[in-house]
């Protein structure tokens, strides 16, 4: 089983130095491209590979690039979205901390493909180890002539900067990220114009996820057919999957795209902790619909998870066990979304705190029959098309699926005027 993204990660997880990265073939894709490939040729290879964005939305990477006018004057920007903040997601962290040069090489190639002249790593504040690794790697890349002017004597110039954020989930949304880089509140922008035409400082800009970018050097080196063969399904490549929650061995693993949820939980995560049963899981972070026992054999690729009624998202599962209250679980998610709403549009700003209060009431034994209808109503009002960005619709995904799959739990809370999961202590109020 090939693991191009992670096979060279050291057992201690320490970042590969430039020399170590070069020793395992690092920057050979860059040499190949600078030796005579055109931007269109790279775009073509990536297009043929069928690479889709690994940040959650799954948009075709080469298609996204193709909207950037190649002949537009400088500056143009390439940004690595390393603001990994989707609750339950910890896959990019591994790449950032352990193979910073792989990301940098992917960024240089992507920048060349769209003829960008400046690039940023937008890194979340909490990733201190990664910040240090990337800072050092950028310096090394400059010293080696992989960054700066006239890279490998090709005539191509690229600068790269590390930007560490100051904490806000919205920064993961690409247009909000651009506002944040411009020193503003991270509220989303209206589209169109799309960032590919008018992005950072009004210039053409591409924002790609870390895992997406790390795939580029390998696709350039080994070709699109190789990349397609890595997967078990029509969605090509490998994927870094993760499992957290009450399993025996929580963790993340690079596996062929299309492994099943059962394999992830039972084989890789070692199964549920003793005495606990699987009840469901969010397949790709907090903003994806629950999958339940009947879906255990669903293939974890874009089409497979979509057919089961959810989204692959980030591919990092959060498991719900039979001793954890599903109402409390969803309440925790909605608290997060309510807090992280930027407040720009009304349904999201007003609706999410309302939902959180209703769920807290149900959890505290004060739920009423009509609360269920109210929650259903919100899943429609805050659904796709009614809000400015994808935050609120994303927040509705776990809620609507919880109401479907765990209805008996909601009803029991309301009828018994208490939370039946004694193992969970009462939720502390946030002061």
């Amino acid at each position, binding site marked *: 089983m090939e693991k191009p993204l992670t096979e060279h990660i050291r057992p201690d997880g320490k970042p590969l130095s430039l020399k170590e990265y070069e020793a395992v073939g690092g920057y050979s894709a860059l040499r190949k491209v600078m030796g005579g490939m055109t931007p269109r040729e790279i775009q073509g290879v990536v297009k043929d590979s069928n690479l889709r964005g690994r940040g959650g939305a799954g948009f075709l990477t080469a298609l996204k690039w193709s909207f950037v006018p190649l002949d537009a004057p400088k500056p143009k920007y390439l940004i690595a979205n390393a603001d990994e903040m989707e609750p339950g997601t910890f896959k990019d962290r591994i790449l950032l901390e352990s193979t910073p040069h792989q990301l940098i090489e992917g960024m240089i190639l992507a920048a060349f493909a769209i003829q960008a002249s400046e690039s940023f790593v937008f890194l979340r504040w909490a990733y201190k180890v990664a910040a240090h690794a990337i800072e050092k790697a950028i310096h090394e890349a400059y010293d080696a002539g992989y960054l700066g002017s006239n890279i490998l004597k090709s005539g191509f110039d690229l600068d790269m900067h590390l930007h560490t954020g*100051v904490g806000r989930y919205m920064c993961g949304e690409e247009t909000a990220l651009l506002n944040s*880089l411009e020193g503003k509140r991270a509220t989303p922008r209206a589209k169109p114009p799309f960032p590919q035409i008018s992005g950072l400082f009004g210039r053409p800009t591409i924002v790609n996820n870390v895992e997406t970018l790390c795939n580029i050097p390998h696709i350039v080196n080994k070709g699109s057919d190789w990349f397609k063969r890595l997967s078990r399904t029509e969605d090509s490549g490998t994927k870094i999957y993760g499992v957290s929650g009450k399993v025996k061995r929580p963790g993340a693993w690079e596996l062929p795209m299309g492994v099943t949820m059962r394999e992830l939980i039972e084989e890789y995560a070692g199964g549920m902790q003793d005495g606990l049963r699987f009840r469901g899981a969010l397949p790709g972070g907090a903003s994806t619909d629950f999958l339940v026992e009947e879906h255990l054999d669903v293939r974890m690729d874009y089409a497979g998870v979509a057919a089961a009624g959810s989204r692959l998202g980030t591919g990092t599962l959060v498991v719900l066990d039979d001793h954890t209250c599903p109402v409390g679980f969803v309440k925790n998610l909605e608290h997060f979304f309510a807090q992280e709403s930027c407040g720009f549009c009304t349904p999201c700003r007003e609706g999410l705190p309302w939902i959180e209060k209703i769920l807290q009431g149900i959890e505290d034994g004060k739920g009423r029959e009509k609360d269920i209808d109210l929650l259903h109503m919100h899943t429609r009002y805050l659904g796709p098309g009614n809000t400015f960005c994808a935050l609120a619709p994303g927040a509705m995904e776990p809620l609507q699926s919880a109401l479907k799959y765990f209805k008996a739990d909601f009803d029991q809370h309301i009828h018994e005027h208490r939370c039946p999961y004694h193992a969970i202590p009462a939720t502390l109020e946030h002061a």
Partner: protein
Amino acid sequence: MLTADEITEIDKAISLVPVRKAAGIEALKIVQQRRRWISDETLRDVATHMHMSAEELDSVATFYNLLFRRPVGRHVILVCDSISCWVMGYENLVKALQQKLNITFGETTKDSRFTLLPNCCLGCCDGAPALMIDNDLYKNVTADQLGEILGIYE
């Protein structure tokens, strides 16, 4: 008043961006690093240097979770309150922390040693429950370990 060192650092950040305002967040980070938090007076001084109104800069400062507009202690404890940590025992951990420090979320100990804050997913869900103190991440934290961990910070 901004110090000479702060002005040097802020001007360096300004030189990297095409629009002066774009360095506003960086400027706030620079002063917070040195002063622990951003007082009204500090905010006004930074705004003046950035050629912004204090109101405009404050709209930015108050938007971000980790720019502190209220005093914090010498060390800031950020407890991950997101889903994986919640499943893995966040609530017991918080109870133990609050008892040990005798403060609740948003408060600072009387000796100004610790401020306790909840924080969104720290991105180490495989090491839940997790917390950060200043720049240090602690994974799989149990209530028993808290004494030892807190002891590291004076």
